[in-house]
């Protein structure tokens, strides 16, 4: 479509001019309903922002913001060189490594699952399967932690007791007490918990692909695998890219509930991630300023990752996120 024809289309569109007053009078109920989410966003996402200035202070609770001492960038320097720097650096390394592993394992699984579910033709079986797969998402990490303990305890866990009673193993597998076993257990539980729920967006995207394409491909003799490869996956590519960018933003993040639920003193070499550092050292240890500095650092790196990923995606010809 040429430039001229675009202008023509724009001109052909009816120009609806309406004043703010008229719009409000017409849809006031909608605006009223919007107040609640806007208030929530303001209160919980923005109202706390002025408190961030504690990253430049040696913040003391009873002295408050007005009485606490300004220390410039000291808290950021302390993160990397202070008494807790060894723990912070360990937490930083673990967060990055485990988020990358989570991404590598957890990101493709919902896509694979969505494609598989899409191929199921028996509706009842499909619905039951979907429900079962979504269910773990609604379990709290405290419940998952308890289930994991019951299942995976080294000596008295269900799995190890079963394997031992069948004579398959002589000693219990230290699923939760040896760091490499723990890493595998932690990652797989994460995949199990999130993959069903994660597949919803992809399933929605798949439904948006025109059935004509599949029909044409079938007439041309395309196999099921070829239809998936050449129609389904390219059809959901923008969704994949968008979610990938969003996931990259969480590369520095970590889920405290998940880490605490699966905590064990023998696996801290891996379990000690940024969320744990911030809670233990920052909150429990009452180093509020350093905890906040670590959190801000985490958020800024996350933001940078999103921006970089978005640029890269656009450079590769994708729509991007921003």
């Amino acid at each position: 479509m040429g430039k001229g024809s675009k202008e023509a289309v724009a001109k052909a569109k009816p120009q609806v001019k309406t004043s703010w007053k008229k719009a409000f009078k017409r849809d006031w109920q909608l605006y009223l309903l919007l107040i609640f989410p806007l208030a929530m966003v303001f209160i919980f996402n923005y109202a706390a922002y002025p408190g961030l200035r504690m990253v430049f202070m040696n913040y003391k609770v009873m002295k408050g913001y007005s009485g606490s001492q300004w220390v410039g960038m000291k808290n950021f320097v302390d993160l990397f060189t202070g008494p807790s720097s060894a723990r912070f650096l360990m937490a930083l390394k673990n967060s990055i490594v485990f988020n990358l592993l989570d991404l590598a394992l957890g990101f493709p699984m919902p896509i694979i699952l969505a494609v598989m579910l899409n191929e199921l033709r028996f509706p009842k079986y499909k619905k039951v399967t979907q429900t079962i797969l979504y269910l773990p998402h609604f379990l709290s990490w405290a419940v998952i932690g308890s289930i994991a303990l019951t299942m995976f305890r080294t000596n008295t866990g269900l799995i190890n007791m079963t394997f031992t009673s069948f004579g398959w193993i002589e000693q219990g597998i230290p699923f939760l007490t040896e760091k490499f076993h723990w890493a595998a257990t932690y990652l797989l539980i994460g995949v199990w918990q999130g993959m069903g729920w994660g597949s919803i967006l992809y399933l929605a995207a798949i439904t948006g692909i025109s059935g004509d394409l599949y029909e044409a491909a079938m007439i041309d003799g395309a196999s099921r695998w070829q239809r998936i490869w050449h129609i389904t996956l390219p059809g959901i590519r923008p969704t994949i890219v968008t979610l990938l960018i969003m996931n990259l933003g969480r590369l520095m993040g970590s889920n405290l509930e998940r880490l605490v639920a699966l905590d064990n003193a023998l696996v801290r070499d891996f379990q000690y991630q940024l969320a744990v550092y911030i809670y233990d050292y920052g909150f429990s240890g009452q180093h509020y300023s350093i905890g906040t500095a670590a959190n801000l650092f985490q958020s800024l790196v996350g933001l940078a990752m999103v921006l970089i990923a978005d640029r890269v995606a656009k450079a590769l010809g994708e729509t991007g996120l921003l």
Partner: protein
Amino acid sequence: MKKNMLKRSLALAMSSAMVMGALAGCSGSTQPTTEGGTQSSQTSDDKTQNTSSGTSEGGESTSAEGAGIDGWQPFADNVKLQIPVYDRGGEVDVTNNYWTQWVQTNFGDKYNITVEFVAIPRGDVLNAYANLANAQDLPTILMEYDFPKQAQWADDGYLQELDLEKLKTIAPNYYAMMEEQGNLDYTDLNDTTYFALAERPYSQNTYNYVTFYRQDWLDQLGLEYPTTWEDTLKVYAAIKEAGLAEYPAGGTKISGAGVDQNYGYRSNPQDEYEWATTGDYAIPALSTEAQKNLLKRRNELYNLGYFNPDFTQREAADGEADFIAGNAFTYTAYIAPSISVLDSFYETNPDAHLSIAVCPGLIEDTGSDGISTTNAYRPNNNFGMMIGFSALASDDEITAAMMYMEWMLAGEVDGTSALFTMQYGIEGETFEYDENGYPVITNNTEGEYAMANNNKDYWCVAVESKTLGTIEDDIKLNMPVNYPDSDEWYQQILDNYKGMESMVDSGVIQPDCNFAVTLTSVTDNQEALLGLYEEFASKLTVASEDEFDTLYEQFKQEYLDAGYQAIIDERGQAYNDGMTSKMK
């Protein structure tokens, strides 16, 4: 049209409710918890009045300055008094029950004071107070047993200076008790007076913390309760071999303040500098030889198969469950007329026979591993509860707090001591007098008059344990009664007390060092070190015998670098400056 109206009304109502709800969550004001029938509600007007009365000059509203209880007059304006109380997770609501209402009726209403109890989770004291401080809602008094915690609060500005003369005037019995107990020596920090201190009877002797053990197992095996390391190993081996318990040494998470106390592994006599710098119980002294030996012994128990290998996945409650199920050799607890674990234990094991371990006096032992130990234990501080006064409290609120402390110690209700009623309850309902005239608790755990933790977390503001003045009477008062083996326990507890007394006389029992200055390195590093200790001690427990020493050296250095060396240095400086207590 009607439908549209309905829609509009609903939209308006929903959005208003939701916005108001969200905004209400941000409100800084707090309302009192549910009040008893006799308790008046605290309104925002009351709050304003409290503030104004606190700042008013000339003490117009303060009519309570008379000497002692007889001189007290009700406040002209209602005063809100907030008292912290430990919440130990029991069934009784510690902030609103018969006893909180009883305090309000017999103390609060009489002096125009609204007494509000603030629940402090027992396992999370520092965070609980920090959250209250964050909300600028500290209770009127801050209570803790540990000097370092109070020192941290003083240093962080939670506390205001205490006027001892005012305490002497308003609460003369309380002040006299402090003077008589020698507790006036502990009121100051950094040359400022902060603390009032409750009485702790038998502070050096921990006879009331006892170990119950399976006498029936030992009888079956033909063995005695062990007092040396080699005997301990023999008993464990025999128990395991007989199939009585898979893990006779137990095993739960190694975590929390007070974990892995190394008193029995220290040299005798101790070096005073080492005692001052690494001798406290709150932060495990991982870098010391004593702690290394303690950990090495546990490592041996683990490698011999006596220590539960799932220990990192087991809470203290799992250990109790083992004992109740008849799968554990020992159970350690404070004595009380009723102990819920023992109730369950005898229900599950009606034929079991429990004895209480008796301290025979000082035992010095060197095992075949070359490690020398004594049976030294951690004595308590000279004082019970330490009481600081909130920096946010008004003069009137401080006065009310002092009145509360005095009333709890020396007040009377209908001719009976308030303290006695708080400790024992109501005759015929919670206790009966026995043939010797001793009050014996009959039921204080259920029903209308149920007492959470024997009400101790209320009356601890005055005294740490029930006492009638002699050890014999006190054991009878406090010991577990109505159990199948109770008859034997009186003599065992008495013998245990005497054995501990002889240990105190021998000089091996030393209270922890107290510091007259704030130790910032302690407050800065304590939480982080406790976390590290749990990790390192757990790893050292499961290490093979060969790798133990190498691993220990590595962890020792990491522990020192993570802040323990800074603590040793600061404590050492205070010791050299003469700002510490001394060994006896």
